[in-house]
């Protein structure tokens, strides 16, 4: 019996692809946060200050996102401005730019 078990092919569970996928998802998130926690917060505050002088802005309607890449990084700023006057559609200011990094 023991001999039989020795030669029997044990089912192998390939767990490495799971590890790889979990890491890729986790690090994509962590890099976005840690990649510039100070910088992102500062940028958001300054944008709120500048745009806020012209439009009433809600804090959570300003999104600042930095994606770190090998060749270049992308800074994405998305500002949703509330409806102005009588039911005009909300103008959306969207800016995106690449920066070396």
């Amino acid at each position, binding site marked *: 019996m023991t001999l039989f078990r020795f030669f029997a092919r044990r089912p*192998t*569970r*390939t*767990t*490495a*692809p799971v*590890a*790889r996928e*979990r*890491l*890729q998802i*986790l*690090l994509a998130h*962590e*890099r976005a946060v*840690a*990649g510039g926690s100070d910088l992102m917060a500062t940028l958001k505050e300054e944008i709120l200050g500048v745009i806020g002088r012209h439009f009433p802005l809600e804090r959570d309607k300003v999104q600042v996102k930095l994606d770190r890449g*090998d060749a270049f990084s992308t800074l994405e700023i998305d500002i949703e401005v509330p409806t102005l006057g009588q039911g005009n559609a909300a103008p959306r200011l969207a800016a995106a730019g690449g920066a070396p990094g």
Partner: protein
Amino acid sequence: MAKVLVVTSGKGGVGKTTSTAALGAALAQNGKRVVVVDFDVGLRNLDLVMGAERRVVFDLINVIHGDAKLPQALIRDKRLENLSLLPASQTRDKDALTIEGVARVISELREKFDWIICDSPAGIEKGATLAMHHADTAVIVTNPEVSSVRDSDRIIGLLDAKTAKAAAGEKVEKHLLLTRYDPARAARGEMLKVDDVLEILSIPLLSIVPESEEVLRASNVGAPVTLNAPQSTPARAYFDAAKRLQGEKFEVVVPEERRGFMGRLFGRRVA
């Protein structure tokens, strides 16, 4: 010109101290003047791995505080005359390290040595950030394991943000040293492969050090593995790493343990 190299990882127990000793010895064996500096204040171990634990009189903190001159604290290796050790303090804690003191010691070491290898403590706090602060080059020691890879990613971020080079708008040269690698387990899909780790961390590969009993055997007797078993697979991986650090370019291969017939037959089950 002298080069300051930090051996770092974030996570503990991945092989920083072993790698510092082995790389330091390998560079010294190539004829370079090398000093290995232990930054793990309070938990020093580089002295033990180098086999110099009974020869420590003064340490890094003594030099920083002016209690001893640098030459008094440097311990010359008994096997390689061009290899020295600057031990960490065992009784003080990392708050005894000051940024100005470390800067002074490093600049003094730059005059005496070709390579200054700083063995970083684990973590991302003061000891670790001071160990990397003056680095020209960094070796990031990583195991093919999720927590080690994640911590290495954090450390890479710190190297790009919190070092003197980063402050000057320059980049610390970064190298990945993959340790405790088991090619057989990776082939079976039980362990992250070299390419997986490289793709995730996207820094160049310095060398692959396989899991090997020679590493423990060397630290048991207090000798860098490159001195204790120069023909062994891990030693050859460290010699290759040292050559690449000196600018040689050649292909990194996945090392295979040289096994006899019985070893090949049973190696799989032991692994």
